[in-house]
């Protein structure tokens, strides 16, 4: 197992290198640059800016310079927020996005699983239909509808919570964003769990367990769950990577200073360094979580073995 993990980590390096290179050049192909704007710059001022930000060097030299900086852990200054380095922006924003994403993921896994199990146990009865309906609604209603609705009802009408803002991380500010992030995930996990649980409950060893007189709880939790949880784990990996790096919609509507918005804003602003930073960030998260998922598989399912 240790050898397997090590091997995966080693192959991650060329993967990251390829992603960085591809992104770097694709980004430069997009028309416009960080300084194209409504108030056009005079050619002299533009030339000055390009020199200061080293955009006047030939592309291959910019690339090598960026690579060497990256290897020293230097993501460079943000072009559009030059008071901050990309690292500064992540240092402030990443903990925020992670807090929200982790809470949402935890809620989703727990509540979604519970709902899914209940639905599976009471298959084709009232409870099951209710859960399926809820799940469909949760995964089809977009977050940019849920968020303003939450603000309208709970913040403006009932005045129980603030409308938006991070509030320095106060719990009351987190409720809205976490719920909005979690709702679609709960829906998906519930459906997954329901499906895989129904499948797992049909297995032979479950029949044996029941015939041996084991309690329903023991049957479900100790025996069926282990098999049923595998699709959830597969789903949770990429979902975690996406959730922990923030959601543009939730962060914009709730005015949360996370890193999610950078994925869109930086690209639209052609903030080259910030875009590269976000690309590296999400690549690392996806690689790490995919690895964690595979390891979890091996731990949960004794039939899976890695050399």
């Amino acid at each position, binding site marked *: 197992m240790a050898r397997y993990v090590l091997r995966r980590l080693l192959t991650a390096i060329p993967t990251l290198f390829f992603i960085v290179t591809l992104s770097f050049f694709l980004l430069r192909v997009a028309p416009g640059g960080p300084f194209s704007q409504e108030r056009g710059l005079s050619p002299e001022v533009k030339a000055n800016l390009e020199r200061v930000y080293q955009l006047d060097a030939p592309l291959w030299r910019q690339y090598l310079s960026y690579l060497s900086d990256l290897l020293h852990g230097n993501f460079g200054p943000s072009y559009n927020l030059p008071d901050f380095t990309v690292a500064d922006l992540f240092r402030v924003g990443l903990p925020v996005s992670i807090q929200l994403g982790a809470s949402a993921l935890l809620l989703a896994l727990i509540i979604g699983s519970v709902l899914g199990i209940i639905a599976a146990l009471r298959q084709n009865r009232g409870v099951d239909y209710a859960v399926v309906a809820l799940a469909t609604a949760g995964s089809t209603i977009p977050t940019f509808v849920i968020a303003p609705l939450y603000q309208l009802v709970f913040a403006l009408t009932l005045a129980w919570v603030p409308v938006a803002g991070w509030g320095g991380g106060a719990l009351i500010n987190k409720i809205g964003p976490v719920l909005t992030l979690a709702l679609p995930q709960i829906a998906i996990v519930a459906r997954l769990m329901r499906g895989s649980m129904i499948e797992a409950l049909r297995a032979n060893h479950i029949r044996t367990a029941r015939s041996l007189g084991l309690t329903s709880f023991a049957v479900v939790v100790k025996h069926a769950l282990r098999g049923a949880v595998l699709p959830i784990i597969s789903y949770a990996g990429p979902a975690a990577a996406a959730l922990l790096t923030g959601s543009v919609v939730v962060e914009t509507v709730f005015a949360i200073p996370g890193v999610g918005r950078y994925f869109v804003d930086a690209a639209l*602003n052609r903030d080259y360094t910030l875009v590269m930073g976000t690309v590296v960030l999400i690549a690392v998260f996806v690689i790490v979580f995919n690895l964690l998922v595979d390891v979890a598989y091996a731990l949960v399912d004794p039939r899976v073995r890695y050399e």
Partner: protein
Amino acid sequence: MSGFRFKPLMLAALMLGIASLPAAAEMIYNRGNSADPESLDPHKTSTIYEAHILRDLFEGLVMQDATSGLIPGVAESWTLSPDGKVYTFKVRSDAKWSNGEPVTADDFVYSFRRLEDPATGAEYASMLYVVKNGEEVNTGKAKPDTLGVRAVDPKTLEITLKSPTPYFLEMLTHQATYPVNKASIDALGAEWVKPGKLVSNGPFTLAEFIPNDHIRLVKNPQFHAAGEVKLDAVNYIPTEDRSTAIKRYEGGELDSNDDLPTEQLADLKAKFGDQVKIGPYLGTYYYAIKTDKAPWTNPKLRRAISLLIDRDFLAEKVWQNSMLPAYSMVPPGIEGYTPAEADYAEMSPLDREDEAKKILAEFGYGPDTPLKLEIRYNTSENHKNTAVAIQEQLKPFGIDVSLINTDTKTHYGLLEQKGNYDFARGGWIADYKDPESFLGISRKASGNNYSNFNDLDFEKLMDEAAGAGGDPKARMQKLAEAEKILVDQLGNMPLLYYSYHSIVSPKLKGWEPNVMDVHPSRFISK
């Protein structure tokens, strides 16, 4: 009883009473400000969102009051030489940096040189191109110390201009001309702008800056007019999502916001009444026309298109009256200047249509032989709706409009490189209160001349206006004549004038409407 001591008892009671008084509540202004500043270094600034914050942190030679009128800043008085080229500013004796050091004329010499120094990469270096050697220094042709700025003594600053420039004082209200603290920059380098370290000379200092969250400014006790500043702190809150901003305002989390979702304007006015502030703003929304590309090389054909566009409809239906119909390039509101409007501003729609049809027929275009026109605009609901409305307006006359929408960077990237387009949407907001700001962009040499307008008479009049600096009336006259040419020849096709649209709590005092939309927190209280 005589032995009983009342006095100490009463004293104790009094002290207890005083101690139990609630601490005086801090006056804090929660100010919604569309976007985070790109930088708090005045020399790296470029957007109006930074302007609001920098105006609170720093003080330039001159400043703007609550109605955007010019007032003395660090300079308490100034004189102009008879030839109109040399300004001498007297620096006030009580001007201080937030660390207690005095602000001197040398601070301005250092700051202006830094603004023009090509190594700084200042986007607004052009603000000081009117100063002697400003452009030369910025393009690397001269050393920064040849810039026409001199400290005669620590309290006297002398600025030499290239030629008489009547709007120079207005230009000095721009944030790029604010002074920066040399000692601080030398010691801290790029870190000098960080909260707690930023040394500034304005009514407030920088306490916190959390990107995408808030910027907290606190009152600067070293400011020479600190006694008049009523606010204890200002929180600038970036409100990218305008719908959320309105909800936050409603919930009391914001005391004002600088923008409104214009598509909800009717509802907002109904709900908030006169808390919604709308008024003329010095900005023009226009379409650039590629005048060097056939068939747009002919001004008559350009005129035909302009005649057919119903600007009233655009203003009322597309922009919900948050914009006004425009027939001149320079918006109204600049004292001493009357914008030159197109002659068809007064014509009836039917007459305009008739003339347009005649022109189109002359060129051989009509419903059976359509004229193809491509309009480019950058992503925004309102830009799209405007373009679609125009497409509908032109269709019945045999003009086949196709629309291309690209994101803002792509849009302006293409225009900068003088790419291939017919009509392209543009907007221009005044940097300073002078018609030159709007007309200068159509000069042949301007990087903002997206129409590639090149008219000899226009250039001549603009040069004459620049030369008439000593006689403001004559100068304004020349500028108006130049504008007439621009408008008649359609070097740019003005469509709408901007307006500011903000929402302001009735609790705020000192927020005065004005065409530059400046609201220094120094004059605001709750």
